[in-house]
């Protein structure tokens, strides 16, 4: 009896008081608390989900339907009733693709394709860009159109691109449609990559649905390694430096010194990389544990020696999607040099707009697009010597260009972006000042430094680390994972860095 009591006490202390209301909240939509991979709630759900998942691994229909239902629940948790939109687009795309597949007359095939594009892009445009359009209309024509009260369904930009790849691949006769609607819905709604990518190609994913479910030793170890790294990147480095430093400087850049402005810009580069790649890594790891392979999304992009290379290493699933379905559809490099440059530029402009309905994303895309065009143009005439010094200079220059472009991506408006850029130009070398600031934000700077060092760890060394991890006994791996949860938890409960005003 006593043991039971102390057990109950322990439970209360460590898990918290659980009442009906709490349990209800676990299952209900809350726009402020999407089901993030780095939350305890997700861990709990995944544990229960996974038991039934592996027990049903030999079935097809049951398992597929089961995962679809869980994915829809997962989507409902972050988007509420909008999970109907996910189902609606899936019905439309599945049906039109079937028609495209069975139809032999080119005219009708094209018609179905265009219909699918219009519906998908139309929905994306409505949910994401209506108010952007209204704002621009109003400022151009002194209009007084009122804004629509539209909530952007989470992940719509991601799954729209996924379903488009399916329809276009079927149209291009590069892919056979799925055998059933449920299989298709499984592809669209697969929860590990549903809300933040990687954007999975139908041709990569759908064949896996019909294979026997398997999880090899290598994949198992890789998955755990990715999840551990992803948690550290996303929930420790990114979350901590953003709320304790970067956000504050971007909120009011003029209240900070030139050095703080510069460090916040670097900090944001590390933050967005850790946030995004960390989340992708967790998604890839989770999918692996479920027996599915998802494409790599990031390959240490800040090691790039050019913007062209950067886009082969940054958000790879998006850049390759844009290349295959937008750039190539516009004609790619098959219509002469001028058209190639134009296509490249437009692809990046639209790619920028995909990130958000605002001119600042367009400018971000345009800057990258111009850089790609300039590199392509001068690449014909200038051949740089290939040695480590030249490469280092290129990496440093590329990184700084990327950081500059991020200012527009992150700042709330153009004024703020230019303020930061302007403040940085006032930087003077002052070792004492820098030291004081670094000491003032020592945790932030420590994490930024870890982020940078991690980024430049050679591939061989990473492979070595993963190999060492693989040789650990099972329980050690699990305890290590548990320790990482604690680091995530203790970071999340860390006190906010107190406000510091420096005066020099």
């Amino acid at each position: 009896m006593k043991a039971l009591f102390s057990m109950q006490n322990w439970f209360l202390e460590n898990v918290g008081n659980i009442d009906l209301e709490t349990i209800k909240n676990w299952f209900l939509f809350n726009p402020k608390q999407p089901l993030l991979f780095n939350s305890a709630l997700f861990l709990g759900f995944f544990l229960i989900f996974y038991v039934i998942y592996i027990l049903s691994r030999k079935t097809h229909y049951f398992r597929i339907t089961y995962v679809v239902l869980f994915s829809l629940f997962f989507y409902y948790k972050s988007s509420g009733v909008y999970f109907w939109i996910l189902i609606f687009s899936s019905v439309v795309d599945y049906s039109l693709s079937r028609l495209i597949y069975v139809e032999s007359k080119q005219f009708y095939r094209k018609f179905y394709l265009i219909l699918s594009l219009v519906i998908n892009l139309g929905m994306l445009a409505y949910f994401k860009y209506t108010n952007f359009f209204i704002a621009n209309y109003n400022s151009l024509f002194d209009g007084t159109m009122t804004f629509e009260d539209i909530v952007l369904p989470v992940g719509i930009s991601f799954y729209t691109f996924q379903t488009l790849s399916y329809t276009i691949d079927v149209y291009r006769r590069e892919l056979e449609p799925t055998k059933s609607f449920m299989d298709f819905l499984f592809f669209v709604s697969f929860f590990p990559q549903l809300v933040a990518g990687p954007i999975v190609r139908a041709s990569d994913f759908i064949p896996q649905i019909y294979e026997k479910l398997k999880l090899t030793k290598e994949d198992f170890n890789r998955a755990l390694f990715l999840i551990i790294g992803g948690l550290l990147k996303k929930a420790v480095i990114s979350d901590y430096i953003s709320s304790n430093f970067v956000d504050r400087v971007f909120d009011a850049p003029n209240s900070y010194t030139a050095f703080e402005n510069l460090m916040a810009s670097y900090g944001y580069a590390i933050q967005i990389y850790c946030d995004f790649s960390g989340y992708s890594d967790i998604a890839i790891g989770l999918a692996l544990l479920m027996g599915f392979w998802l494409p790599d999304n990031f390959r240490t992009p800040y090691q790039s020696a050019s913007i062209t290379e950067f886009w082969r290493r940054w958000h790879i699933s998006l850049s390759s999607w844009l290349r295959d379905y937008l750039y190539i559809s516009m004609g790619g490099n098959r219509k002469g040099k001028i058209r190639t440059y134009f296509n490249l530029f437009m692809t990046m402009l639209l790619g920028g707009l995909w990130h958000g309905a605002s001119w600042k994303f367009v400018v971000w895309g345009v800057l990258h697009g111009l850089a790609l065009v300039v590199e392509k143009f001068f690449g014909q005439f200038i051949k740089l010597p290939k040695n480590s010094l030249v490469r280092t200079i290129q990496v440093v220059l590329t990184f700084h260009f990327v950081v500059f472009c991020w200012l527009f991506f992150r700042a709330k408006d153009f004024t703020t972006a230019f303020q930061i850029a302007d403040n940085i130009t006032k930087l003077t070398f002052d070792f004492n000042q820098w030291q004081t600031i670094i000491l003032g934000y020592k945790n932030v700077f420590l994490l930024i430094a870890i982020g940078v060092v991690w980024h430049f760890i050679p591939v061989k060394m990473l492979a070595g680390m993963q190999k060492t991890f693989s040789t650990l006994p099972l329980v050690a791996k699990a305890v290590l994972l548990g320790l990482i949860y604690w680091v995530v938890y203790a970071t999340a409960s860390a006190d906010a860095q107190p406000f510091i005003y420096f005066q020099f």
Partner: protein
Amino acid sequence: MNTSKYFFQTLVVVIVSVLSFLAFKTILPKKIFTESKLNSKSVVVDSLLLEAIAEEVGPAVEDSMANTVIDYKGVNGVRFPAETFEEYTGNQYLATFFEKLFQLETKKIGNVRIAYFGDSMTDGDLIVKDFRTYFQEKFGGQGVGFVNITSESATSRSSIIHEFSENWKTQSYLKVKQPLHPFGVNGHVFYANDTANVAWVKYKANKTRFATVLPRPTLFYGSSSNKEGKINYVIGTDTISKKISPNSLLNALVLSESNLKSIKVDFKQADSIPIYGFNFDDGKGVHVDNFSNRGNSGLPIGSFDVATMRAFQSKLNYDLIILQYGANVLNYGSLNYSWYEKRMAKVVAHLKECFPGVAILIISTADKATKYDLEMKTDSAVVPLNTAQKRYAIKSESSFVNMFTLMGGDGSMIQWVEQEPAKANKDYTHFNHRGAKEAANLIFIQLNKGYELYKKLRKKQKKSAVPIKKDSLFFNTDSVHEK
């Protein structure tokens, strides 16, 4: 090969990881990345506040005021209704200020001046800029008022473009106890002591409403034995050189009678002359001076020199002094604010001695959120500090704006930060431009409500009693604008 094996191993890993997490949670600390105190002379802190905290002695006996009813004696026959502690505004104590507004509004007589003291919340003219605009919109007036020579927040100030040379020597009441000369009303004193290079300051009007020009730039400086000092500046194509005559405790030198777009002033041979700053106002309507200092707790005001302040008062003629502090007192570690209450009551008493008859308004701390476990909540110090501020407002017969309740009370800072578009910064302490404008509006609305009530009470009183004695105060033109 049995590839199913690893599915079950995964399950084991997940379960063991959760269990080991719970174990780690019990044995390891709850937080990482704790902060150690940063000791650096470059960090802006209020030295008087640090002293006050260090001297703080035991818990004071609380005489609860919660059930107190605040009853007023009338001023010139205008008597505001009694108020409860809960809803205290102390409008009664603004009666002289309201009367000046009334004369200004109805008879276009006189002008009204407000000194707005604050901390980083009003840094860069946030809140005050909009507060000034609301008043100037209703009562007239042009210009941003008094501006320092150097300012830590000059770059973030949008209501005026303010630049200065690096070689000014600055003494601030936040850090210096015994200044070379008394502090000005802005809590600072500046010296152009660099003999090798010219010290200069430049002001340029920005596109802010009612501040698109610099009306009647006037330099304020103190007394010194150095009679050689002069200033050079350019108006149009003329270079003008003027002598600084530091003969009195406080001197004012008008640089131009007309409105300028911008002005750059060079100080020559002016070392050891205490320079206070420039004033820009057109002498009509309402003017609001922003005296903000990052890190200020309000306590340094207690170090003002009475004679110097009276000299400022005779030139600038303030009608209302606003004190908006609190953000820097919130996180010192205890919820007992009786020490702060006592010391601020003394500060207010001192201000009343410096500026006899001037109404005083205390604006409370705004809401501030802190992380408790994993959740942001209103900092537990906000309500105790807020109560302490209200108590010293009542005890010192000052009026009171409860910024915390006006912005929505418990949890409101979280909303201000998280709503789209955001009204406050991610530090869960400071407003951004949008929030500052709303805060200024909330303050203005409360003052305006009090003013409207004053007008009604005044009318009623007029019908029933003798006309108001024409207090000389109401028709005082300040000496800066004497013609």
